[in-house]
């Protein structure tokens, strides 16, 4: 069936119209516009070209005319000689254009009568014989009569066809302004001809000159001029027929030369002028054609793509409508048509499927009904006769199809059942009502059924009852169980709630176990608690009990108090319960050890569950059933467990609460025991809690303070102070510390604030701690004053003072120290040895030594100062210890001993010099004494008397003993003391040698400690020993006696002072008893007594036993300054 108004035609037509029309319109408008614009442009260009050419010509003519005019104004031109005139005219004639073109063919000078006076030609030789009269010519008459410049018509040279023009000018006498002659010039216009010919007028345009009659006088094509062409001079620019007979765009400009009017006409072929328009038109046309072609082609494709599938679809639909369901629409694609085709095919397929499924449904329906495990039957609403039953119904009730419903389905029913629902299946209009659902326990098989009845129209149209009855007997049983479970859960909920809400679990436990008992319908419910005896034996005691009415309570039985499970045969219970496991079952199945007690309580079945609190076995809860043996179901056991768990939590909670209370009391005591002012503030600065110190310091009770703002109570202000740390903490969440003097309470306080954050990290409160630092502040002020005093003192005495911490880091440096070592800021916190630039601090740093030893330390070192100067500094470091003896500070006093060191150096040098000098003195003294000794020795040789000789010898020995002291002093490094041991040996050796003692006969012993004696002591001792030894050697051993002479010198205590004991002894003849040695005339002994008692201020004792022993006790003479 063909469509009358096909989509293809409509689409195609629309496409063509919509694409062609705008294209054509656009192209036409654009082309016309361009044509008009181009034409105007061409006309304007021609006008411009004409004007350009005109300008050039006018310029040249004007220039020439001006120059000629200048010449004519030469005063004496007419009075010059022929040759002069000839020369001038030659010069004029030779004038060329700027482009080097000769302008004049000839130039002639005419007198007032018109007679040529002189004439010069470009090419010809003109002599005076060639001169003629031009009296009648216009070139003479016009200028001579009117005084105006004459421009002749454009003429052409017959021979060369070159154009020329006569220009003549009057020669005027400037003095009297009279015309005295005429100057004529034959001007070559070939330059103009060439110039116009060369004016570019497009590619093929021309510019030409025509006179006022339209005669072409200059043209790029000379033949045009030569054949005498005429042209109609155009008045306005525009398109007209040109000189060549073609259509041109022309323009015209006029030029006036004298009385002549010349026209410069420019022409350009229309085809050239409008070339751009043609190109543009061609371009537009091509573009339009191209676009149109494209659109049409594209449109054709699109139309085909759109229309063809629709046609195919239409054809397929027709076939299907005539019954051929096998037809498929051959359409595909992702566009709407494709989707339509696919949908159509899908619809067809589905229709086929639907038909097939309907057939199948019927079969399945029957199959389904028969496979249902529900009673399905249909009975007539009027007759109640059963019309249809399914297989299940047949299996349950037998083949009751055709029977009356109450006969087949119920027992002992002779008429309609009183519970029949037929009247509920129809509306008041007699139409089928909604499904009626109900549950019923069948009287025949006692099963519960969920019944769905409805009235339907049977196949014959009559209204029948359709009943579907599903066996719900099991469900009903489960409902009963669930209800029971629900009650138990409610009981558990009640128990839990009671335990959680009641502050003390013991207040509600009785109700709980009562509720448990009632819900579970047991004989007894009870709770036992564990406890220990002597912290070792585990016992349990019944604490709570509920009994069902008619049952005997057991709680009062003493044997159920302090019950030892283990001892009483319930070890099994201990084992299970302690592990958290229940014990339940029939008593008859329990171990014999348990049965006795349980039977005595008439318990037939028992269920016990342990109670744990904080993972500790606290006790147990149990059910007793005395009426019958009972199988405990999981729910009941779980109930017990849940109750036990809840009880355990409650017990634990109570215990925790008790702990919390205790902790709170302890915290409160601690809070109040803090000596500082501690308070907790809310975000709005209100006091939430204060400690005792806070209230004591302010002199108010806690109740008076709580709820007040801190700035009110602390500072007496209505708002926070500007630098309030509390404010800072509240706003920033950061801790703050400040020190300030609060005049309100006349105290220095160090206040620190710390935020209390909630779970969202927001500041919910602030802990405010105010420490009374008044004493510390005062101490600090004192310390500061001390420091200042110390600073002054140390500055005065020019000592550097450092305070170091326990790590020897600098915490303070006075001005002197800073002057030496640099500004305090640089050294603060630095190790002192770094500041002092000590290279080996462990060995040289006094601070470290102090730390190590705990004792003051001194050191001397050369330090380079800040200014580069080196100083010798004496450092005294002392520890400052706290009460525990721990060093917390080290003071280091630095004294500049540079000058002292220099002085010491000087003294040392001086001393050394003096020592040398002293040595020299000793040496000289010794030498002098030796000289004296030698003199005495010499002198003795001149004496014969032995007595006098001995006197000389004794004197000599005495002098020798003194000289020996000086010698020893000279030899010793110590110029003040001599090693007396060494001295005595030398002295004794000298005496032995002098007296010629045989060492085999007389043995000398020296027993002397290492003693150094000063010169003041050594000399008298030396003299004493010399005398006593000499006496011993001379007088103790005579006649060849053998013996021993001994000298002993040791340190001794002389009346509590250090002294010496000298013993000189011999085992010789001894001194006679009757000899009083004090009265002896021996010089030597007198000398000895004198030296001992007066010089040494000692004591001498003579012991005459076993020879002679002198014991002398004396103190060392102390040197006193004699200066």
């Amino acid at each position, binding site marked *: 069936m063909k469509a009358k108004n096909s989509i293809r035609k409509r689409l195609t037509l629309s496409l063509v119209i919509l694409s062609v029309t705008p294209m054509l319109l656009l192209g036409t408008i654009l082309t016309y516009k361009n044509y008009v614009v181009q034409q105007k442009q061409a006309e304007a260009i021609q006008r411009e070209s004409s004007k350009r050419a005109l300008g050039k010509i006018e310029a040249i003519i004007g220039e020439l005319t001006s120059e000629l005019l200048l010449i004519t104004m030469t005063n004496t031109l007419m009075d010059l000689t022929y040759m002069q005139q000839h020369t001038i005219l030659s010069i004029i004639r030779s004038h060329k254009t700027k482009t*080097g073109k000769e302008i004049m063919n000839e130039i002639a000078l005419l007198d007032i009568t018109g007679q040529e006076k002189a004439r010069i030609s470009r090419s010809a030789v003109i002599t005076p014989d060639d001169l003629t009269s031009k009296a009648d010519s216009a070139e003479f008459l016009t200028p001579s009569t009117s005084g105006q410049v004459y421009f002749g018509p454009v003429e052409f040279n017959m021979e*060369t066809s070159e154009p020329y023009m006569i220009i003549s000018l009057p020669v005027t006498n400037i003095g009297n302004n009279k015309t005295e002659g005429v100057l004529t010039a034959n001007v070559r216009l070939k330059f103009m001809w060439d110039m116009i010919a060369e004016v570019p007028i497009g590619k093929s345009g021309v510019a030409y000159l025509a006179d006022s009659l339209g005669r072409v006088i200059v043209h790029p094509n000379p033949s045009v001029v030569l054949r005498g062409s005429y042209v109609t001079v155009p008045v306005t620019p525009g398109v007209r027929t040109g000189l060549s007979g073609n259509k041109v765009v022309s323009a015209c400009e006029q030029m006036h030369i004298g009385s002549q009017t010349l026209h410069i006409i420019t022409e350009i072929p229309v085809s050239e002028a409008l070339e751009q328009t043609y190109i543009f038109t061609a371009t537009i046309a091509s573009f339009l054609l191209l676009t149109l072609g494209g659109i049409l*082609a594209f449109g054709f494709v699109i139309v085909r793509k759109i229309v063809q599938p629709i046609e195919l679809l239409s054809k397929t639909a027709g076939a299907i409508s005539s019954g051929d369901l096998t037809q498929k629409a051959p359409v595909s694609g992702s566009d709407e048509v494709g989707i339509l085709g696919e949908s159509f095919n899908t619809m067809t397929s589905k229709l086929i499927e639907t038909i097939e499924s309907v057939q199948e449904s019927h079969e399945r329906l029957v199959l389904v009904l028969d496979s249902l495990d529900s009673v399905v039957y249909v009975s007539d609403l009027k007759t109640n006769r059963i019309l249809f039953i399914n297989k299940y119904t047949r299996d349950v009730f037998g083949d009751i199809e055709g029977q009356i419903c109450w006969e087949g389905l119920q027992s002992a029913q002779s008429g309609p059942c009183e519970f029949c629902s037929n009247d509920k299946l129809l509306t008041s209009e007699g139409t089928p009502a909604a499904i009626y659902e109900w549950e019923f326990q069948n009287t025949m098989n006692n099963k519960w059924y969920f019944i769905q009845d409805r009235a339907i129209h049977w196949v014959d149209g009559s209204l029948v009852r359709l009943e579907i009855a599903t066996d719900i007997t099991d469900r009903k049983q489960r409902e009963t169980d669930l209800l029971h479970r629900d009650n138990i859960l409610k009981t558990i909920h009640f128990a839990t709630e009671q335990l959680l809400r009641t502050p003390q679990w013991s207040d509600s436990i009785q109700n709980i176990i009562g509720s448990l008992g009632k819900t579970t319908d047991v004989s007894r419910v009870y709770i036992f608690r564990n406890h220990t005896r002597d912290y070792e034996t585990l016992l349990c005691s019944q604490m709570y009990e509920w009994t069902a009415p008619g049952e005997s309570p057991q709680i009062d039985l003493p044997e159920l108090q302090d019950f030892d499970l283990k001892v009483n045969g319930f070890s099994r219970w201990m084992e299970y319960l302690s592990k958290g496991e229940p014990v339940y079952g029939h008593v008859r199945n329990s171990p014999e050890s348990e049965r006795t007690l349980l039977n005595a309580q008439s318990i037939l079945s028992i269920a016990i569950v342990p109670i744990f609190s904080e993972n500790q076995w606290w006790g147990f809860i149990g059910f007793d059933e005395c009426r019958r043996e009972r199988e405990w179901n999981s729910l009941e056991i779980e109930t017990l467990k849940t109750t036990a768990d809840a009880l355990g939590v409650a017990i634990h909670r109570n215990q925790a609460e008790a702990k919390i209370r205790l902790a709170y009391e302890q915290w409160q005591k601690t809070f109040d025991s803090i000596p500082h002012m501690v308070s907790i503030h809310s975000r709005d600065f209100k006091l939430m809690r204060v400690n005792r110190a806070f209230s004591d310091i302010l002199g108010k009770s806690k109740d008076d303070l709580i709820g007040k703002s801190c700035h009110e109570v602390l500072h007496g202000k209505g708002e926070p102070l500007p630098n309030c740390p509390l404010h800072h903490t509240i706003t920033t969440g950061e801790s703050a510390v400040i020190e300030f003097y609060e005049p309100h309470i006349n105290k220095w306080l160090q206040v620190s604030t710390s935020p209390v954050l909630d779970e969202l990290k927001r500041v919910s409160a602030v802990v405010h701690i105010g420490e009374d630092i008044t004493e510390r502040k005062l101490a600090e002020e004192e310390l500061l004053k001390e420091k200042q005093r110390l600073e002054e003192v140390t500055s005065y005495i020019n000592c550097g003072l450092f305070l170091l911490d326990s790590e020897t880091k600098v915490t303070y440096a006075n001005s002197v120290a800073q002057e030496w070592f640099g500004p305090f800021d640089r050294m603060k916190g630095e190790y002192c040895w770094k500041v002092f630039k000590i290279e080996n601090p462990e060995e040289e740093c006094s601070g470290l030594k102090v730390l190590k030893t705990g004792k003051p330390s001194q050191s001397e070192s050369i330090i380079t100062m800040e200014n580069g100067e080196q100083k010798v500094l004496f450092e005294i470091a002392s520890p400052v210890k706290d009460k525990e003896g721990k060093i917390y500070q080290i003071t280091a006093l630095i004294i500049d001993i540079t000058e002292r060191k220099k002085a010491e150096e000087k003294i040392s040098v001086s001393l050394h010099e003096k020592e040398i000098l002293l040595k020299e003195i000793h040496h000289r003294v010794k030498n002098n004494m030796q000289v004296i000794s030698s003199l005495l020795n010499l002198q003795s040789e001149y004496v014969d008397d032995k007595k006098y000789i001995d006197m000389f010898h004794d004197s000599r020995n005495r002098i020798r003993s003194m000289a020996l002291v000086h010698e020893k002093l000279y030899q010793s490094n110590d110029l003040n003391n001599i090693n007396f041991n060494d001295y005595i040996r030398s002295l004794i050796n000298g005496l032995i040698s002098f007296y010629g003692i045989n060492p085999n006969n007389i043995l000398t012993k020296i027993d002397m400690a290492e003693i150094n004696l000063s010169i003041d002591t050594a000399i008298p001792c030396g003299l004493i020993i010399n005398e006593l030894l000499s006496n011993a050697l001379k007088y103790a051993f005579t006649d060849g006696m053998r013996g021993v002479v001994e000298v002993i010198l040791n340190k001794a205590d002389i009346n509590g002072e250090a002294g010496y004991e000298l013993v000189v002894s011999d085992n010789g003849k001894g001194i006679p008893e009757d000899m009083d040695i004090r009265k002896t005339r021996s010089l030597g002994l007198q000398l000895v007594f004198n030296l001992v008692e007066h010089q040494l201020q000692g004591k001498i004792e003579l012991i005459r036993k076993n020879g002679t022993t002198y014991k002398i006790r004396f103190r060392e003479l102390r040197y006193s300054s004699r200066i």
Partner: protein
Amino acid sequence: MKKYLTILILSLAALFNYGCNQSNQGQNYTVGIVSLTPKHDQIIKGFKAGMETFGYNEGENIAYIYEGPLKDKARLKPAVKTLIKSKVDLIYTATTPATKAAQAAYLENIPVVFAPVFDPVQAGIVSSLSNHGKNLTGVQVGGSTGKALEYLYAIAPNIINVLVPSDNITPSRQSLSNLRKAADKLGIKLIVAPVKSVKELQEVFAGIDSTLDAIWLLNSPFLVSNVRLYKEAAIRSNIPLASGASQHKAGVMVSYGQKHFKTGEQASRLAHKILQGMPPANLPIETCDFFLGINLQTAQAIGITVSENILKQADYIIR
């Protein structure tokens, strides 16, 4: 379908492109040059320079076929034939003989432009300068001889006898003819000395005596090519040297006539018009511009003072 569409689109695009490109194409020309003597190299340079001003750039849109000065009249016609075979667009001839030899070309419809030709009418090349009707045009250079003699007379008004060596070729005869007319008017006597070779020329100059007042150089290729001898003779004899050809650079004391380079430029304008489509018959033969040249070095050597009035008229002065 797609294929047809593609072909259609491509075709239209090609057409469009062709149309746009049509207007952009230019034309190339070939010009043959025939010259007889190296003396005319400046004219040819002037011709090419003039053509450049009209947009003809050698190697771009114009090619010149030029074998160089042929130096032998017998080679002129074969050269022209060669150019005809080469289908040149135009032939440019320098000298009357070359122009006459090119007659075959313009008979073959190849236009000819000549420059210089002393007097094409007298040479029989054309019947008239304007309406000649032939396929050639050009620039004639004659007509200045008389004026040149006048300038000599103005510089040296005492001259009476003027030595005129002549080789009796056409341009010499034409030049001599014009010279006689002027000389008669000025009362000057021409002493014409026929010469055919350099030796004869030298002999003529060697025979100059005190009766001669000036030497004249005719417009002859042969004579002009020996201008050095003229100059030496003039200096040696202390007499002025003049010419109707522009030879001041070569040492002629006073010369009035065409300037080769300028003449060549003038001819290029005619050639340009012809190449742009103007029939040569429509183009009258032009006369060249004349230029006065004074060589003061020669004048000084000769011992002559040229007045300021003359110098003011001079186009070129060699100092």
